[in-house]
């Protein structure tokens, strides 16, 4: 029996190349749990930045939370912001480099709890930036605590018997809130757990960056995602749960366009 070595290039030659990882995602292991939506969301943002040819002029702002290390994965200049402050940091960058493309990448705890003021006021000033808001209804990085977007009755380590809205408040629809502000030009809610949603989400992210190019003001793209670890489910179970519960409270689609 003889063995032959085949290089990846030879394999590709034999077939038709239908998909390639964007060069703007680094070849390093992602720190996200298997099954998590962050990897897809990262890829979509970087694909858009590459396809628009703006990566030399793009500065990203990473949050505190699971995606704190986004700067390890995205091959562009990045600033890591304090918890919730990404929209203020992005404001600072954009005000001194108005021709650069600036985006924040934030989770629900970062954007909708500790950073509520920064989010609302950056949107209210119509800062010409893109906000990518990944909403998985829980604090993943710190081990599954209740988030501002945790659904009513949903269990977390700080709502172990389920979120009681009478004492813990209601899940916050912050994208709807900021959509009411005149500074916001585009507010949309997307998902990335199935191919059909991924394609739509990418178009939304593209539109958000196009808005920035056209100096239209703030664009916010919410991505409803899963947290199979924090929700204590398998990846498949978490996607089903997302479909049945998260999307019922956080319906997909454009809120303002």
């Amino acid at each position, binding site marked *: 029996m003889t063995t032959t070595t085949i290089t990846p290039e030879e394999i590709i030659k034999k077939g038709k190349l239908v998909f390639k990882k964007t060069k703007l995602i680094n070849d390093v292991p992602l720190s996200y749990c298997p099954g998590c939506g962050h990897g897809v969301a990262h890829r979509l943002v970087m694909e858009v930045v590459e396809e628009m040819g703006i990566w030399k002029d793009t500065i990203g702002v990473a949050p505190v939370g699971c995606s704190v290390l986004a*700067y390890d994965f995205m091959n562009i200049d*990045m*600033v890591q912001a*304090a918890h919730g*402050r990404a929209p*203020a940091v992005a404001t600072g960058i954009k005000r001194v480099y108005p021709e650069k493309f600036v985006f924040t990448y934030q989770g629900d705890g970062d954007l909708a709890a500790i950073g509520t003021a920064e989010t609302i006021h950056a949107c209210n000033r119509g800062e010409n930036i893109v906000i990518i808001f990944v909403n998985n209804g829980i604090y993943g990085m710190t081990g599954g605590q209740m988030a501002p977007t945790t659904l009513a009755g949903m269990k977390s380590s700080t709502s172990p018997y389920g979120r009681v809205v009478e004492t813990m408040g209601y899940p916050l629809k912050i994208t709807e809130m900021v959509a009411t502000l005149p500074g916001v030009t585009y507010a949309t809610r997307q998902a990335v757990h199935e191919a059909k949603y991924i394609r739509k989400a990418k178009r939304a992210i593209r539109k958000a960056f196009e808005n920035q190019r056209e100096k239209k003001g703030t664009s916010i793209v919410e991505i409803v995602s899963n947290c199979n670890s924090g929700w204590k489910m398998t990846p498949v179970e978490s996607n089903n749960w997302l479909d049945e519960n998260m999307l019922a409270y956080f319906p997909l689609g454009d809120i303002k366009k």
Partner: protein
Amino acid sequence: MKEVKLMKGNEAMAEAAIRAGADAYFGYPITPQSEVIEYLMHEEPHKRTGMQVLQAESELAAINMVYGAAAGGKRVMTSSSSPGISLKLEGISYMAGSELPCLIANVMRGGPGLGTIQPGQSDYFQAVKGGGHGDYRMIVLAPSTVQEMADFVELGFNLAFKYRNPVMILSDGAIGQMMEKVTLPNQKERLTDKEVIKRYDDWATTGKPETRSRNIITSLDLNPERHERHNIHLQEKYQTIEDNEIRYEEIQCEDADYILVAFGSSSRISQKVIQLGRDKGLKIGLIRPITLWPFPYKAIAKHADKVKGFLSLEMNAGQMVEDVKLAVNGKTKVIHYGRMGGIVATPSEVLNVIEEKLISNN
């Protein structure tokens, strides 16, 4: 020709920021320093130099705007007063950790809490001993005149960029509000984007060209060895600053039996105390620390064997006196005198303290 004007300390500082070629100012109003942002908004520096000015929604937001703009290698400034500085400490710690240059002015009022809107010097500890979390240091400049409010802006920016570190101008409500003659610095050209991108190519986040690897501004490192190395690097930098950047002024210390140590407004009262004392035959001198960190320990220590006592005069309950004691190291008597609540000690009151507590008890 130099331009000489009669200005408030806060206004002089704002005008000096424009003239120092600052790229941006982000602030939030608070008494007694609101004139800084009012002056800047009125001057419209974007028309004069291209400098951006923005009123943020909070001190927290303002310092984080500074963080973002400084990450891009720009000369950025913010200012506030005591309660507002407490809010900025989060951002200051992050900027120290990620080694970003910036200038922060604290026009102090009395505390704790909301305290008073009257002048105070009770943020000495907060400014020189860290304030925010983590092992970091901030260069702290203490102006005592409106002239120094203006002069320390460019000095502060230069030190901030020399060491890639936050620098604070620690002033107080009296100097911020008083009007004095000030010789304004000449207008310095702002660097163009191209110049900034080229000059700080090795660290600033300005968009990644083909020619370099990406720049990341972060204070996070989850690898213990690497993070310890980063901290050691910071400590080495702080040592270099201590070795090179101590600034102070000595007044009539050559023949002094008693030395006052005072900064900012208190140092001005001290000069009158020296005069009153010497009229009575008491040989009093003054050491005025200009950098509160790095602190002029050696300048004080060299007098410790010769004088009969030191008085640390401060507008607080006794903060800098701890550093004076460290410098004197038990060789002679060190006492503190301070008024609070916005009350400024009178020179005769201070002289009484010297006579009763430093001289008669000696």
